[in-house]
């Protein structure tokens, strides 16, 4: 630069670097100008992405097709359909068994069918020049989609809506390193936090160090307050390895997701979930059902009013009936 550019080049370099730093500062301070520019680019991009997706999707699957060369399409479709059915059955059975064991009727997985969903097509994937893991779908705020809504595929959870425009939305995939979701183990009802690792594997950290976790355990979403960003009961994945070494404060595990994030064609955004689903099961709750109905001795010690107010009621049946009557 000193040889060829001289002072003018140095000045230009300084001006450009200062401009870039100025933009970064504006963005980090939350100025709408920079956020708005990305929103505008998304609005421009989404119609193009939708069109290109129609034409380009066979090319996009080119490398995957090479890998599966030799298997007929019919065989693949058959295997996929069987797998989906089995995974859904395993998730439902394990969850119901876990809840029956602990006499907790907090969630009926069959209620998952009551989700109100908006189906959307995947029209783009996150850019290779950034390390974030996202997809773009062809439905947006005009279809009722808002940010922080749960996104599922046929096999289970895939992510959460990050931003929306009127006709498209960007979904943060669960494999993104910044992704966190509260999950519970269907068998033991232990709760933990699942994190994306940027690949097909996920890290699970149990909140309770004495919680029970085994290889093969099924994980379901724990749910968030107001069902945002996560509705409860959506199948997430299966535990593939457990690290319970004595040196760690809590148990960690590696998880494989049910949904294949590399093969997303159509996804569904949950725009509303049944209000009767448990929204905050992350808190350990005593089991009032056992105390009241199975062991009659403690009943005289507690007045009916004290029982109702002192013990949290995790079961949703009474409130659900009341809601339905309204």
């Amino acid at each position: 630069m000193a040889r060829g550019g001289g002072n003018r080049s140095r000045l230009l370099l300084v001006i450009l670097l200062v401009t870039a730093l100025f933009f970064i500062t504006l963005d980090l301070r939350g100025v709408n100008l920079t956020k708005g520019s990305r929103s505008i680019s998304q609005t421009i991009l989404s119609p193009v992405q939708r069109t290109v997706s129609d034409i380009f999707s066979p090319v996009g699957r080119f490398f995957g097709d090479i890998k599966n060369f030799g298997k007929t399409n019919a065989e693949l479709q058959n295997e996929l359909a069987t797998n989906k059915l089995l995974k859904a059955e395993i998730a439902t059975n394990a969850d119901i068994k876990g809840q029956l064991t602990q006499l907790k009727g907090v969630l009926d997985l069959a209620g998952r069918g009551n989700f109100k969903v908006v189906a959307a097509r995947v029209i783009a994937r996150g850019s290779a020049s950034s390390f974030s893991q996202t997809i773009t779908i062809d439905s947006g705020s005009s279809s009722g989609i808002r940010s922080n809504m749960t996104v599922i595929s046929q096999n289970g959870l895939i992510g959460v809506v990050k931003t929306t425009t009127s006709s498209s939305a960007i979904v943060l995939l669960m494999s993104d390193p910044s992704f966190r979701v509260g999950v519970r183990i269907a068998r033991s009802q232990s709760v933990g936090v699942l994190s994306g690792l940027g690949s097909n594997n996920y890290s699970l950290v149990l909140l309770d160090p004495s919680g029970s976790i085994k290889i093969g355990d099924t994980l379901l979403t724990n749910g968030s307050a107001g069902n945002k960003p996560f509705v409860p009961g959506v199948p997430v994945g299966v535990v593939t390895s457990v690290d319970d070494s004595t040196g760690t404060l809590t148990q960690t595990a590696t998880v494989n997701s049910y949904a294949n994030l590399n093969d997303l064609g159509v996804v569904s955004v949950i725009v509303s979930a049944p209000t009767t689903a448990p929204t905050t099961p992350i808190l350990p709750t005593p089991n009032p059902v056992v105390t009241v109905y199975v062991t009659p001795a403690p009943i005289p010690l507690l007045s009916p009013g004290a029982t109702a107010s002192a013990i949290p009621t995790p079961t949703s049946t009474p409130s659900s009936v009341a809601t339905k009557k309204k």
Partner: protein
Amino acid sequence: MSPTRIFTTLGFFFALFVIQESAVSLIHFPLSGFSLYLAIAISLIAFEDHNGALVTGFLAGIVLDLSPTSNAPFGQWALILTGIGFLFAVNRDSIADLTSSPITFVLFVAGGVAIALVTYLAFGALLGEQNGSLGHDGKVLLGNTIWTLVFTPMFLPALERVREYSLTARER
């Protein structure tokens, strides 16, 4: 770099950005993808003279910052690609005319892509972004570098012609 050429370059980068985000990102490349945008942007930076490399890098970065899927703050890519432009400008004299040796040129472009991505990760780490495990990031870096090495020779002749066409008589 003339104002006309700045606007032409900006338009070219935006078109390239749309292609990258709409088409190239749909392809499931083994080893986590290929950024055609970065490969072409760094090739163009390498073609330019001192000031041209800086301006081209900045313009390429600004357009890439428009990516709605990016978690990075607006301006991060502009900063990084201006830096890459500076690196090419400084080393241009010492490595002679890159265009006379296509193999060296491709190696420099692939190296430039790798440096840009590593710098992006480093800035991300400084700014508290979560960009994944070391293994995953290494895979993305390796994938991008390999695919850049593979694809750059394919688009290089066409890119050189487009650039020649866009130059004014004075710039030639």
